[in-house]
C-alpha cells in the first residue's frame, strides 16, 4: 500500500465534551466524555485514550497532551498509519484496560475519581516495565510510546522550534540564546 494514499488529517481537532454525566459528578471525575465516534475509535474508546494521554502528560505550567490534541491525532493515525494488526492490538488493549480497571477497583474506569484513575494507570505503567511481559503490557508500551511521540513532536510541546534558524552558533550564553529565541532568527 502506498503511503501517500491517505491524507493525514492531523490538523487541529476539537474535543466533544459531552454532558452524559451529571455536572457535579463530572467535576469530581474531571473526565472529558466523547459522545460521538471519532475517525477510528468509538466514543468510549476515545474517552479512554484522551484520559490516558492526559494522565501520562498532564497540563502543568507547560502544555500537556490535551493541549497538543494528542488523543485526536492518535485517532487519525490509527486510520492513516496503523496496520490492521496494530488496530486490533489497540482496540483489544482498551477493552482489556477497562476490564482490568473494573477488576481492580470494583468499578467502571469512567466512574473512578481522577486520583483513582491516575493511580491505576501508574500501576499499569509500573507493571508493564517492571513485571509483566504479556500482550497487555506490550500494547500499553506501544500506546504510551505513540502518545509521547505525538505530544513531544507537536507544535505546543516545541515552542522554541525554528523551521529556519538562519545559522548555527555553538557557544552561546543563556542570555544570548534567549535573545535569539525572542527575535526568532539568528
Amino acid at each position: 500500500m502506498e503511503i501517500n494514499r491517505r491524507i493525514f488529517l492531523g490538523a487541529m481537532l476539537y474535543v466533544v465534551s459531552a454532558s452524559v454525566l451529571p455536572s457535579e459528578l463530572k467535576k469530581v471525575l474531571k473526565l472529558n466524555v466523547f459522545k460521538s465516534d471519532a475517525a477510528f475509535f468509538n466514543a468510549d474508546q476515545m474517552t479512554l485514550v484522551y484520559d490516558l494521554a492526559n494522565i501520562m502528560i498532564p497540563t502543568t505550567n507547560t502544555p500537556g497532551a490535551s493541549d497538543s490534541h494528542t488523543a485526536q491525532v492518535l485517532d487519525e493515525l490509527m486510520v492513516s498509519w496503523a496496520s490492521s494488526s496494530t488496530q486490533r492490538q489497540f482496540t483489544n488493549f482498551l477493552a482489556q484496560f477497562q476490564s482490568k480497571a473494573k477488576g481492580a477497583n470494583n468499578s467502571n474506569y469512567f466512574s473512578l475519581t481522577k486520583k483513582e484513575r491516575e493511580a491505576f494507570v501508574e500501576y499499569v505503567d509500573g507493571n508493564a516495565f517492571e513485571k509483566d511481559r504479556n500482550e497487555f503490557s506490550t500494547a500499553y508500551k506501544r500506546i504510551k510510546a505513540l502518545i509521547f511521540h505525538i505530544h513531544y513532536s507537536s507544535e505546543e510541546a516545541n515552542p522554541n522550534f525554528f523551521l529556519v534558524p538562519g545559522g548555527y552558533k555553538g557557544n552561546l550564553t543563556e542570555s544570548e540564546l534567549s535573545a535569539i529565541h525572542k527575535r526568532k532568527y539568528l
Partner: protein
Amino acid sequence: MNKEYDVIIVGSGITGGWAAKEFCERGFNTLVLERGRNVEHRGPEYKDFQAPWELQNRGMPDEELADNGHYATLRKKGHLYKTDALHFFVDDKKHPYSFPKDKPFMWTRGYQLGGRSLTWGRQALRWSPMDFQANAKDGHGIPWPISYDDLAPWYSYVEKFIGVSANKDGLETLPDGEFQTPWEMSYAEQYISNNIAKRYTDRHLIIGRAANLTSPSQEQTALGRSKCQARSYCRRGCTFGAYFSSQSATLPAAQKTGNLTVVTDAIVERVDYDESSKKALGVTVIDTNTKERRQYKSRVVFMCASSLGTVQVLLNSKSETFPTGIANASGMLGRYILGHVTGVVASADVPGGEDKFAFGRRPIATYIPNYRHEKRADADFVRGFGFQTTAQHRSSTRPTAKEKGIGIIAKQNVGQPGPWRFRAFMYGEVLPYYDNVATLHPSKKDEWGMPLLHIDAEIKENERKMIKQAAKDIEEMLEAGGCTNIEVAATPQSKHIPMGKQVHEMGGACMGSDPNTSVLNGWGQAHDVPNLFVTDGACMASCATQNPSLTYMAITARAADYASKLLQRNII
C-alpha cells in the same frame, strides 16, 4: 524526439549532473537518461518547509509498508526510514537485488532525477596523496593510475562551483581546498579539539567540510542558490538551493546552455556495442511506464548510474566481443566491490560548559581524519580509519516512553539541560578484495526484465583488526580530549557487519594502468571501448576513509574535459 546525441550520460545524480554540465558548457548536444521520475527543484516533493508536526503521520511510515516487506534495507538503517524523505529512497521490494543469505548487502538507492545527490551527506573531503598510493604500496587491489596531483586542480574546480564550507586545517592527510566560511564548532567540540591538539601531532578533530553554502559566490547566486539556513533538513530537498545537488546546481547550469535534454523514467538496459567500429553505439532503454524499448545513439557514453547500477548495466551489455559484459575483456567487471565500515561507536561527556548553549541545526558533523595510513608500529592491519563525530548541541533529557514513568514528574524531567555529550562513529577503509564481486543473477529478473544484481561482498580480517584498534584509539583520544563517562561499543568479532551500511559502495569497474587487470584507464575510459567512460563510484580502485562524492565529481569533470578534447579532435 531526437535520438542521436554527442554524449549520452546514464544517470542524473552527483556525477551525471557534473558530466551534463561539463559537456553542455563545451557545446555538446547532451542527453541525460534517468531511470527514475522527474523531481522538480523546489517542487512539491521537497518537504523542507514542514515542521515535525506537519510531516505525514508525524514522520512514521505507514505500518503496512513494513508488514508487506517494503523498504527492507532502509528499515534496517532506521534513521532514514521516515516520511520526510522516504520518497527519495528506493523500495527494494519494487527494485530487488540479490546477495548470499549469509552476506546481506545494504544497497541504498535513489531512483529519481538528481539521484542520491538529493540525500547525500554533503561531507566534501579530498583524498590525500597517500590514499592514491595505498594500493601500489601495500599490494592490495589494482594500483591507481592517477595521483593526487592529477586530480588536485579538478578538486579545486569542483569545490569552487559546488561551494564547500570548511576550515583550512593544513593537514597532509586531508588536503585543503577552495573553501567558503567554515561552520562553527560547539563549545564541546572545540574543547576536545584543543585538548587533542595538545596531545597529538597526527590526530585532529576538525569541523566537517560541507557542501552547504555559507558565502555564496556570484556564480552560485546566479543559479538561484543562497546561504544555508542551518535547518539540517537537507535530505528533504532544499528550497534555498543551499546544499549542492544536481537539481540546485549542475542541471540548471547545463540547462542554461540549451544543449541539454533530460529523459526520465528510462531504465538503461544496455550499452549497445558496434562490432565493426569497436565502439559504443549508444544505449537501449526500457520505458519505466510502458516497458517499451527504444534506442538512443551517441558518440560517447558516460556511465554515471551509481557504482553498482553502472556495473549492472555494463554486465548486461553482452555482445559477441564481450559475452560477459561490455569492456570486460579483463574479466574484472564487477570485481573489487568496496565500501566503508563502521564497527565502533563511542560517546563521552565533555566537562564544563554548563552555561553554554547552541542554536540552529548545523548541517555537518565534526571529523577526525584518518591518521593511520602507513603507521604500523602498533597495528596488525593495513590502511586506516577516521571518525565522524559530533557534539553540536548540549544534551537535554529527552522524553522517553521506554521506561517507567508518567505524569507530572515524568514531564518535569523532560528537557532539562544535561552535559555536552560527544559521539564518534568509526569509518574504516575496506580493502579491495578480488572476491568481493557483483554479478548478474542467473535467473531472477526485475519487473522490467533486467537481471538482478547479485552482490557477494564481505568485510574480512583486516577490517576486524581495524575495529579492535579503532575502539582502543577512540577511548584514548576521548581521554586525551578531557572527556568523562566514556563509553565505547565495538561490534563483536563474531557479529556479521553488512557491506553497504555506510552507503558508500564503490568499485566494480576499477581504474588501472593494465588492461589485463582493470576495466578503465586513468581517465575513466574503458580500456576496451574508447568512447565508453565510467566516472561514478564504480571506477574507484580503493575507497580510502573519506566520504567519496567530491572525488567522484573531480574524476567526472576531469574525464569530461578529456573526452571533450577527444570529441573535438574526432578521435572518438
